[in-house]
């Protein structure tokens, strides 16, 4: 059974149709890279999957249970979903008034109501996993972009999500910091975690993803294995998109 099933997902902002009927099935352990030009709806699609944006039409089914019905989402239901579908943002969105370990503990303390000691132990474990055990007491303002993003990943992992959504996790980083974040994501992939990743790092997508989705005009224009989509794209627009990405190297 699919872990996540999306049917007819439609989202419009004002008069613009950003997503026009997306159908998508995500199997456990799948790693899906979502590509597309800016404005193609990649981020919106991701944000609809954990209801950071509310879909206008369509259903999202998580582990066999329909979320919704559409248009009538209860906050308590959505907070449950968001704990199960973790998200990492382009701009990190760390809480600047908390230390690194405070950021990672926050969900465990406030949402899961864990004791301080319990949350701290877990948070330290997650920080160690992303290689930042020594930065536990550091405030985000004193971390590099790459370190911030790794803290953000640890914060998401602490909630034990069944699926992770990465929304252009390296796009805000200086080039020399991209590698450390990609390495962490790759290690999560190696653990067999289910993830959806919006990215412009085509080489990374090729090596890590099990499936590539190319979005254009709010629809899935082409999808398939990395070899199919990245090396032998069938659609003209996919080819044009790939050609425009100069750093396209396997």
């Amino acid at each position, binding site marked *: 059974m699919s872990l996540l099933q999306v049917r007819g997902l439609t989202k419009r902002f004002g008069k613009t149709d950003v997503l026009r009927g997306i159908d998508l099935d995500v199997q456990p352990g799948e790693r899906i890279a979502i590509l597309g030009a800016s404005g193609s709806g990649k981020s919106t699609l991701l944000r609809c999957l*954990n209801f*950071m944006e509310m879909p206008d039409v369509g259903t999202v089914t998580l582990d066999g249970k329909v979320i919704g019905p559409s248009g009538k989402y209860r*906050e*308590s239901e959505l*907070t*449950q979903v*968001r*704990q199960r579908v*973790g*998200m990492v*943002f382009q*701009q*990190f*969105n*760390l*809480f*600047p*008034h908390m230390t690194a370990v405070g950021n990672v503990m*926050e*969900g465990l303390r*406030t*949402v899961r109501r864990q004791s301080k000691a319990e949350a701290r132990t877990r948070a330290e474990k997650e920080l160690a996993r992303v290689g930042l055990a020594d930065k536990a007491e550091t*405030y*985000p*303002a*004193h971390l590099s972009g790459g370190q911030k993003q790794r803290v*953000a990943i640890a*914060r*998401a992992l*602490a*909630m034990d999500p069944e699926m992770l959504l990465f929304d252009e996790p390296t796009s805000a980083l200086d080039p020399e910091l991209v590698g450390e974040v990609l390495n962490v994501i790759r290690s999560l992939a190696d653990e067999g975690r289910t993830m959806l990743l919006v990215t412009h790092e085509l080489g990374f997508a090729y090596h890590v993803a099990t499936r590539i989705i190319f979005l254009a005009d709010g629809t899935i224009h082409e999808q398939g294995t990395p070899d199919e989509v990245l090396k032998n794209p069938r659609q003209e627009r996919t080819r044009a998109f790939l050609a425009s990405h100069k750093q396209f190297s396997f």
Partner: protein
Amino acid sequence: MAYQWDFTPVVANAPLLAQGLVNTLKITGVSLGCGLVLGLAFALMRLSPRPWLRLPAGFVIEVFRTTPPLVQLFWVFFALPLIAGIELTPFMAAIVTFSIQSGAFFAEVFRAGIQSIERGQWDGARAIGMNHAQAMQRIILPQAIKRMIPAFLERSIELMKTTTLVATIAYADLLFEANEISQKTFRPLETFTVVALIYFVVIFVVSLLARQLERRLAVSGENTVH
């Protein structure tokens, strides 16, 4: 003939001024405390998606921000007994008026502070499963309040000066006592000069303390740096 300044009558009445100062601080302090609580409540109501919360809060805020505080005070003190049969002592009338009035202003400060926090902070909070109230309490407000301190300080100073209006309903605040002394001693210039000095010292000291606090919070929180 040059004016002969003589402060001895003022000094002789120092205990009266001290009592007045205590009363002024009492009204300012209580109104400030209630105003902050009311202001936060008004702001949260005004930012609520529910119209039955949003609209009344907006109405109260606008009315109290756009009408003269003296009129508000007269209304509470003189009109409320006539309309609603509620009789208030001058002290209570002052507290009610200035709490709501400063609450209206504080609400706008809170609202501006809350709205100044980047949308990404809400995203970050919701992404780990927080609901609206948890995100507001744990993530948004702690950051917003630090940014609001200068505006709060400004409003608090305004409030302390506005409380001089209570003299008009015969509450013995600093200005009221000054009036009494000046009429008794025929030394209005000296009396009011001293009173101005007292206001200056109190407000100046408070603002120094607030600036200190602001600096301390900035160091521990690093919140405005991105």
